[in-house]
């Protein structure tokens, strides 16, 4: 049977930004295996016992305390999130990790990360790990208004953060894409996460700059031939079977066919690796 559920104690309910809840869980059993890009499934009980596997990206890991922070994704139906109303001490049933770690080749020293208020939950752990490992990281973050921008205190000081807000209330007025040009050449590796409009805009902006993909050892082992794509998109999904069988999380385009719950969240863009097929 798939990974069996683990019981986790809720330590605290916090916020990455206003309205973006994050749960701090006591999770000694799973913590060692968690890497940036991983998510956990929170088995949230509906009325009458029907439980859903709700995808919660891992935003921070504290190996000493044995605690893991996960973000609650906003629901497409705008529904009230009952998990955000739990009080510390509550028990939660968790399964995971879901998906694969995000691959950043060891020789990629300058990393550009582009995100928005929804995508931030998928890159916080990555940016923190890369910066702590001494790589130079630039984070472009886009939001409608200043209030939606996560606080810089959530990331290591060494990370260079540029903010763009639609209403100009903070940083550059406009979208993160306006700021990409100056970093496109500089970056060895680019990672984008957030609304689909942002992902397409970043892909278009980078298509112009012709840097070759980097070939890395791990990429070969995983039969992905042409190495890690220079641009990786982190695609989110909300809920599903988590076992690759329902087709609910399949991201498909001309070159890729990725099941986000198995091979996601990273999807190679700009003709990177050969189609990442579900290996069996």
């Amino acid at each position, binding site marked *: 049977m798939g990974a069996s559920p683990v019981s986790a104690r809720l330590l605290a309910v916090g916020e990455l930004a206003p309205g973006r809840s994050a749960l701090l869980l006591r999770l000694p059993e799973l913590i060692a295996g968690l890497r940036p890009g991983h998510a956990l499934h929170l088995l949230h009980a509906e009325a009458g016992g029907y439980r859903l596997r709700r995808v919660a990206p891992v935003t921070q890991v504290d190996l000493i305390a044995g605690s893991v922070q996960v973000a609650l994704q906003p629901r497409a139906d705008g529904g009230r999130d009952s998990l955000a109303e739990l009080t510390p001490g509550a028990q939660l049933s968790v399964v995971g990790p879901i998906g694969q770690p995000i691959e950043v080749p060891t020789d990629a020293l300058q990393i550009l990360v582009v995100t928005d208020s929804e995508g931030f939950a998928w890159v916080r752990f990555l940016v923190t790990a890369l910066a702590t490992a001494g790589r130079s990281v630039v984070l472009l973050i886009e939001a409608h208004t200043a209030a939606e921008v996560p606080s810089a205190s959530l990331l290591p000081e060494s990370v260079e953060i540029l903010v763009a807000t639609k209403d100009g209330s903070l940083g550059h007025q406009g979208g993160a894409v306006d700021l990409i040009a100056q970093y496109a050449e500089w970056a060895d590796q680019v990672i984008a996460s957030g609304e689909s409009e942002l992902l397409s805009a970043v892909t278009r902006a980078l298509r112009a700059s012709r840097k070759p993909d980097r070939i890395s050892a791990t990429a070969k082992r995983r039969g992905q031939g042409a190495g890690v794509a220079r641009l990786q998109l982190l695609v989110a999904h909300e809920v599903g079977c988590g*076992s690759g069988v329902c087709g609910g999380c399949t991201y498909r385009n001309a070159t890729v066919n990725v099941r986000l719950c198995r091979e996601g969240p990273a999807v190679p863009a700009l003709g990177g690796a050969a189609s990442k097929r579900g290996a069996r």
Partner: protein
Amino acid sequence: MGERLAPGSVSSAVSLGGAHPLRLERPIVTASGTLGFGAEASELVDLRDVGLFVTRGVSLAARGGPGLPRVVEVPGGLLHAIGRENPGVDEVIDRHASAWRAAPCAVAVSLVATETKSLERLIARFESRADQVRADAYELDLTVPCDALNGARWERSLEEATRFIHAARASTELPLIVKVSPDAVSVRALGEAAADAGADLLSVSGSPIGFLPNRSRTGGALAEGLGELSGPLIRPRALAAIVEARGTLPIIGGGGIGSPADALDYFAAGAFAVSLGSALWADPALPRAVLESARRSAAARGLSQIGELAGLALGGAELRVRG
């Protein structure tokens, strides 16, 4: 009511249908599409606790699916649109037929077609590869769009659905399950048409359609726009459809089962077997739990077979069906 029995002594086998009876060791069916085509199903659920595994929908030619998002949460369940995506009958047989042969339970293949010609060729394809394919029954999916109804489902037209069922019946001797949802034009009329056409079972377990705008309300929450609904929110409507269909054909009841207690409602409303779908994802042990609670419930009523639970809520007199 007879006096109590020991739960263990209650038999769970049900033999359903007349001319082409389908014997299930356990009255538990997996809903098509929720456990995949076959190869990976037993990774999630122990099929020994199941009576019938129904595959994800298979069509003659490959069908692509819509963009993401394809599945979103709604109060009380899920809204989803996968578009009956599948690689086509040959690809599915090549990769999943071995898992069907090895399955510790009966296997039904779910047939997806938008017009009768390709349905006939789809069944012929399965029957021509009978050496590799072990299928104990076919499930004809009437919740799929029908070309002749410009995209509306087969189940929305009694005439089109009847022709579709006859085409399936004429193409095979295997037990034939007709699957409908509460959106059917009339679940009762479809049950009668299926019985007249020689179908063996009626599965009243499908997803009604649903829609939600996305948060900025400029488009749908799903890329596809309209989608299908699963989970507890469809339970009371599904139970009413089961009551409406009672007596036309033996019924597999489902759509919205989240717990063993829910499952007992479907037996009580008239089902001989229950279909478990999206609840399996988070609760893989649900089949065994449903089996045990059905046994206890039958034993407490002195019934020696789980099948005798069917229709208890409707008592003797036919419930005044005014739906």
